[in-house]
C-alpha cells in the first residue's frame, strides 16, 4: 500500500499497549514502507536525509544522530562484522518512555534499526534490554521471529544484498550499562565499566568492530523521516529542535503519563495541561525536567520550551524528557538522598571520584535527613561536587548524579539549614 499522508504523531501512530500490531497489521498501516524506501536508496543518501532532519539522540545527551553515524568508516571488507545496538537499558530514575514504545509498537523499533543498519552497513544488531522489561522482551522476540519468517531479517533482505540479523540481549541489571562503552563491555560478557575514548565505538566498538549505539526512541523517528523527508520532520518541532518527543510526568500530579508532543512544547503545557497539574492539596515545589540526573528547575521556569538548548539555558538538561515533580509535602533533601544513593549504588567503581565521592555524599545527606547533620557538611557536599565534576571522572555517571545535588543545594538551602539547625526532618 502507499502512504501519502504524513502522520501527526510519527512515534506513536502504531502504538497499542494492549495488543501491539503484528507484522501483517503493521504493514497494512504502512509499516516497513520507510525501510523499503531506505533500501531503494544508497546508504549515503539515507545518511544525508537523517543529517538534514537534525534528529538528535533521544537517550539524554542529544547528539546529532546523522553525525554519529557519519563517523563509521566506509566498508573496505564486506566480511568484517559491523554492529548496531539499540540501547533499551532504561534505568534513569523517573524515565519510562522506552518501555512504553517497545511494549506498544515493537515492529517500529525493528524498522528503525533496519534503516540504521542499511545506512551504516551493519550486519548484526542487538537490543540491549533491561532484565525487568519482560513484556517488552516477549513482544520484541515475537516481532523478530515474524520478521525472520518474512525475510525482513536474515540474508538478502527483501531480495537485496543486505544481510542483517537481530538479537535481544537481556541485561543482568546495572545503570552503568546505559553508558555506551560500558554497554559494549556488557555485551562482550564483561563487567560493564566504561572504556576510554578514543577509540570511539563507531570505529572500534563491540569486539573491536565498528559499532553504533542509539537510544530506542531515536530509532522510532527513522521510518517517517525517510518516508516524508527532512523538511517535514523539522516542521514538526514547536521551537528550535526538530520532530516530536515522548514527554512524561511522574510524581504527585493528577494524571501521570506519557505523551508524544512537538519538540519544544513548554513545561507548563506538559505539567499543567497534559498531566493535569498537581493533585488536590499539593503545590508544585520543583521538578527535574529530564529524569533523575538532571538539575532541578522551579515553577518560574515553567514557560521554558522543552528542547535541548532552551532547557540548558535555564540551568538544567532535557535528558530523557520525563519530568519528575516534587510536591510541597515531600522532603526535598530526602528526594536528593534517594537520587544520590541510587547513583552511589550504581557507580561501577572504576574511577575514584565517583566510587568514593558519591557514597560520601549519600552518607552526608542521610546524616542531614536523619537529624545528625552539621553546617560543615554543606561545605563537604560542595567539595564533593567539585570532585565529581566533568573532567574529573571517566564517564558521565557522577557528573549526572551531581546535578540534582548542586541545584538542590542552591534551591533548597533553607531546608538544608532547617534540617541541621533543628536536628530533624521538618517534613516527618
Amino acid at each position, binding site marked *: 500500500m502507499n502512504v501519502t499522508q504524513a502522520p501527526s504523531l510519527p512515534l506513536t501512530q502504531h502504538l497499542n499497549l494492549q495488543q501491539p500490531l503484528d507484522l501483517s497489521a503493521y504493514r497494512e498501516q504502512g509499516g516497513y514502507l520507510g525501510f523499503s524506501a531506505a533500501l531503494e536508496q544508497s546508504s549515503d543518501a539515507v545518511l544525508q536525509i537523517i543529517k538534514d532532519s537534525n534528529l538528535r539522540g533521544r537517550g539524554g545527551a542529544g547528539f546529532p544522530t546523522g553525525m554519529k553515524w557519519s563517523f563509521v568508516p566506509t566498508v573496505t571488507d564486506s566480511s568484517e562484522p559491523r554492529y548496531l545496538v539499540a540501547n533499551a537499558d532504561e534505568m534513569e530514575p523517573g524515565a519510562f518512555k522506552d518501555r512504553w514504545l517497545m511494549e506498544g509498537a515493537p515492529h517500529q523499533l525493528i524498522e528503525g534499526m533496519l534503516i540504521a543498519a542499511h545506512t551504516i552497513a551493519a550486519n548484526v544488531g542487538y537490543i540491549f534490554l533491561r532484565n525487568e522489561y519482560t513484556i517488552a522482551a516477549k513482544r520484541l522476540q515475537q516481532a523478530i521471529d515474524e520478521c525472520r519468517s518474512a525475510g525482513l531479517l536474515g540474508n538478502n533482505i527483501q531480495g537485496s544484498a543486505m544481510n542483517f540479523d537481530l538479537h535481544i540481549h537481556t541485561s543482568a541489571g*546495572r545503570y552503568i550499562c546505559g553508558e555506551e562503552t560500558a554497554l559494549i563491555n556488557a555485551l562482550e*560478557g564483561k563487567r560493564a565499566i566504561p572504556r576510554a575514548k578514543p577509540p570511539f565505538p563507531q570505529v572500534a566498538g563491540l569486539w573491536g568492530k565498528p559499532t553504533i549505539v542509539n537510544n530506542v526512541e531515536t530509532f522510532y523517528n527513522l521510518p517517517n523521516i525517510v518516508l516524508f523527508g527532512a523538511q517535514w520532520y523539522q516542521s514538526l518541532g514547536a521551537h528550535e529542535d526538530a520532530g516530536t518527543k515522548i514527554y512524561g510526568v511522574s*510524581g504527585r500530579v493528577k494524571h501521570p503519563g506519557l505523551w508524544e508532543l512537538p519538540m519544544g512544547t513548554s513545561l507548563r503545557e506538559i505539567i499543567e495541561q497534559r498531566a493535569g497539574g498537581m493533585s488536590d492539596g499539593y503545590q508544585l515545589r520543583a521538578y527535574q525536567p529530564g529524569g533523575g540526573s538532571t538539575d532541578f528547575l522551579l515553577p518560574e521556569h515553567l514557560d521554558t520550551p522543552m528542547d535541548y538548548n532552551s532547557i540548558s539555558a535555564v540551568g538544567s538538561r532535557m535528558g530523557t524528557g520525563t519530568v519528575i515533580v516534587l510536591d510541597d509535602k515531600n522532603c526535598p533533601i530526602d528526594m536528593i538522598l534517594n537520587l544520590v544513593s541510587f547513583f552511589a549504588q550504581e557507580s561501577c567503581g572504576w574511577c575514584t571520584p565517583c566510587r568514593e565521592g558519591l557514597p560520601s555524599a549519600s552518607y552526608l545527606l542521610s546524616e542531614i535527613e536523619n537529624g545528625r547533620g552539621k553546617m560543615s557538611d554543606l561545605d563537604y557536599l560542595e567539595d564533593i561536587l567539585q570532585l565529581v565534576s566533568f573532567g574529573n571522572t571517566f564517564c558521565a555517571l557522577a557528573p549526572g548524579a551531581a546535578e540534582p545535588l548542586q541545584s538542590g543545594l542552591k534551591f533548597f538551602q533553607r531546608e538544608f539549614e532547617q534540617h541541621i539547625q533543628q536536628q530533624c526532618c521538618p517534613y516527618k
Partner: protein
Amino acid sequence: MKNDLVNQQQIQTDKQQLQQLLSVQEKSEIDQLLAHYPQPGGACIDALAIVQKYRGWVSDQAIAALAEHMGISLSELESVATFYNLIFRLPVGRVLMHPCNGISCQLLGYKKIQQQLQTALQIQEGETCADGQITLISLPCLGACDKAPVMLVREAMVDGLPGTSSESLLVNLHCSELELLLQQFKESAV
C-alpha cells in the same frame, strides 16, 4: 614428583565432578550460546542467567562448574557475576518481591510499602523468609513511574499500590503462593 602426580589426579577428579554438577539441559543451553560468540567470555552473563534459571541462584560449586565448562577462569566469571544486580550469589526464595525504590515511587509511598512488607514478612531488605518462600529486594526505578508506586513480583508488575492509604497493598497480587502471605498481611494491617 609423586605428590605432583597425586595432585594432578585430584585436580582431574575435581574437574570431572564439577562437570557433572551442571545438568544436561544447562550444558546444552550454554553450548548453544557459546556458538553465538566469537569468544567464550561473551556468553558469561547469559550463561550465569541459565544456571540461575534452573537453580534460583549461583552457588560456589555451580560457578566453578560453569567456568570449567566454558573454559574461562573462575575469577573472570566471578568478577562478572558479582557486578550485576540480578545475578544472585546467595540463595533466594522461590518468589522474588521487588518493590521499586526509584524516586517517583518514593515520592508516592515506597518507604511505607517497604516497611509494610518487612513487617508482614518478618524480614529486612535483602533477606528471605524463614520458610524460604519469599525474598525481598528493592530494585531501582522499574520504568513504570506513571503507575507509581509499583512492585515486581516474580516477573509481574503490580502497580498502583496504595502507598499512601492504609489498605492492604497485597490485595492486588494473584500469585497463589502468596495467599498465605496475603492472609498474614491482612491480619497485621487490621
